[in-house]
């Protein structure tokens, strides 16, 4: 086992693939000498040169489009959009182009590309630098959406994403970058579409994503002191979704709590809740509970930001409310 931060694990995945496959390259704003706004690409430019770790102008639409064009013609780009908030600028290329080209062309084209998207609040970066926009992407058929919550998953899932022949939106949470964790010695891929039970339990299933997994685990510690054992399941990929693992857990606990950091209205968590209700309603002993951010932009002031974003306390209270 090795100890790595989430950011280091992401870098290790990119290093691994850059070494292995000459078609892989990285591009984005300040990913080269600067090492990335959050330091994720780090020193990769020194190892692989400016051609393969390519700084771009501030032009998100062209970054996304260039990734598509390169992917369509034999390369495997890994593009970074500095904050997921700026994916809005690149949306036509991702939604109307990347997601649809293969289908529109009758399966005659492949787009092996990854777009890395740091998201989330917690650093008082305010309304335009703190959003969680996964639902925008999971809503679009043709894009896979990955969201690791710890270093080992970051490593394995990014390797798989780069090797995948489809456009992959790879979401990262800013608050996780400096989090350390154990990572296997070998750089092995983790298949997309495989959830993981992060903590076993019997009283309720808490399905959490991204940084909310850590909060759910903290809540689990608290609840355990009161004799309540929650099972924390991390889907790890939002699409494709590992229903077997998630449903398996719910069939055991008969309770489902969904925790995501997105604004609750229209979120991915709502989609999951709907699927559970449609497909395994009979196994539920209580209503499905969704915990998300309030339906507001993310405010700047610390106390407001803390209030808007879900906390451990919200998870504890909501779990108790259905027991």
């Amino acid at each position, binding site marked *: 086992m090795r100890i790595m931060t989430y950011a280091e694990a992401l870098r290790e995945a990119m290093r691994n693939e850059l070494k292995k496959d000459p078609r892989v390259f990285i591009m984005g704003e300040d990913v080269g000498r600067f090492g990335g706004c959050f330091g994720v690409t780090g020193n990769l430019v020194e190892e692989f040169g400016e051609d393969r770790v390519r700084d771009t102008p501030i032009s998100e639409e062209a970054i996304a489009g260039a990734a598509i064009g390169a992917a369509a013609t034999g390369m495997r780009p890994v593009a970074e959009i500095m904050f997921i908030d700026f994916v809005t600028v690149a949306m036509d290329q991702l939604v109307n182009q990347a997601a649809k080209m293969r289908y529109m062309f009758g399966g005659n084209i492949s787009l092996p590309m990854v777009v890395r998207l740091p998201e989330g609040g917690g650093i008082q970066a305010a*309304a335009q*630098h703190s959003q969680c926009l996964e639902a925008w992407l999971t809503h679009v058929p043709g894009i896979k959406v990955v969201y690791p919550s710890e270093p080992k998953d970051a490593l394995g899932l990014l390797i798989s994403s780069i090797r995948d022949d489809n456009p992959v939106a790879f979401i990262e949470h800013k608050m996780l970058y400096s989090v350390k964790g154990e990572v296997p010695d070998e750089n092995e891929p983790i298949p997309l579409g495989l959830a993981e039970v992060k903590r076993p339990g019997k009283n309720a299933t808490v399905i959490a994503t991204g940084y909310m997994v850590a909060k759910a685990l903290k809540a689990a510690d608290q609840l355990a002191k009161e004799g309540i054992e929650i099972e924390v399941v991390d889907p790890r990929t939002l699409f494709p979704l590992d229903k077997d693992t998630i449903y398996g857990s719910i069939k055991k606990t008969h309770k489902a709590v969904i925790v995501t950091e997105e604004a609750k209205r229209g979120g991915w968590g709502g989609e999951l809740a709907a699927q559970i209700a449609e497909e395994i309603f009979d196994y539920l002993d209580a209503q499905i509970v969704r915990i998300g951010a309030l339906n507001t932009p993310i405010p700047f002031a610390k*106390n407001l930001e803390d209030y808007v974003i879900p906390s451990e306390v919200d998870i504890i209270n909501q779990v108790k409310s259905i027991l």
Partner: protein
Amino acid sequence: MNLSQELLASMYRKMMKIRKFEQRVSELFAQGMVPGFVHLYIGEEATAVGVCENLKDTDYITSTHRGHGHLIAKGGELKYMMAELFGRKTGYCKGKGGSMHIADAKIGILGANGIVGAGLPISVGSGLSARMRGTDQVTVCFFGDGASNQGTFHEAMNMASIWRLPVIFVCENNLYGISMRQDRHQAIADISDRAQAYGFPGITVDGNDVLAVYEVAHEAVKRAREGAGPTLIECKTYRWRGHFEGDPTTYRAKEELEEWMAKDPIPRFARYLEENGYASRKELEEIERSVESEVQQAIDFAEKSDLPDEADAVTDVYSDLVEEGRAR
């Protein structure tokens, strides 16, 4: 140009205000009093002031992530600014916006903006609106060299041009977009050249010379008010601090910074004022001291101000609805 003593003194005071405000913010950031992302304007004061001294309160500006200087130059009040940076209820945005979104709508500020290049199309809209409402208001759109590579730049320039809108595009070319030096992010030296492609004047000016900026902006504002359409002004300048506070600035040479610090717009203007008998050393020092105490008062105001209430988190999303809060 023959400028009144009063106007010259006002320019000096505002430049000094920006400098002192930003220096204190830098300290406060280091002490953890000002959180979040903070992009300082130190070194670029002459640009905002030279431009905004041509504007009335009723004119509009769109600003950027590096917006404190624009707001001060347009007439913003330091205490409400500082309170916003502290995330207090009394701030310009009630603590909801912070440094990157600080704005005073009452004096025509259509936002500082966290999205690079986003102010450009907005300035087209306010220019169009002034035209449709039949006023003589103009809009100044501030943006950086880095922003000039966004699609919005090109779309906005073209639209403002075909409709001959009263918009003045002011590109603050401080040589970098974060770590990307201009010669790495575009293949031209003068961004003002791009105006030609859209059929209106583009002018490059020394952005550290407040009088030169004033003069060029004066002409552009006049053109805009008279219905002659937009102008692109490129102000060559330099940011002294990192891109944001905390940026180690490993991507640029110390010599480059020193070279630009030697071109400090403030002593340069002070020298002009003294040499031409517009102000004495003593008067300038007087201004500096009074600005320092104004900044201190702003900090005191911010520190004494209350935090926003949790209930405030769910207001202002809509004009007529309050979002649901949560029980904790």
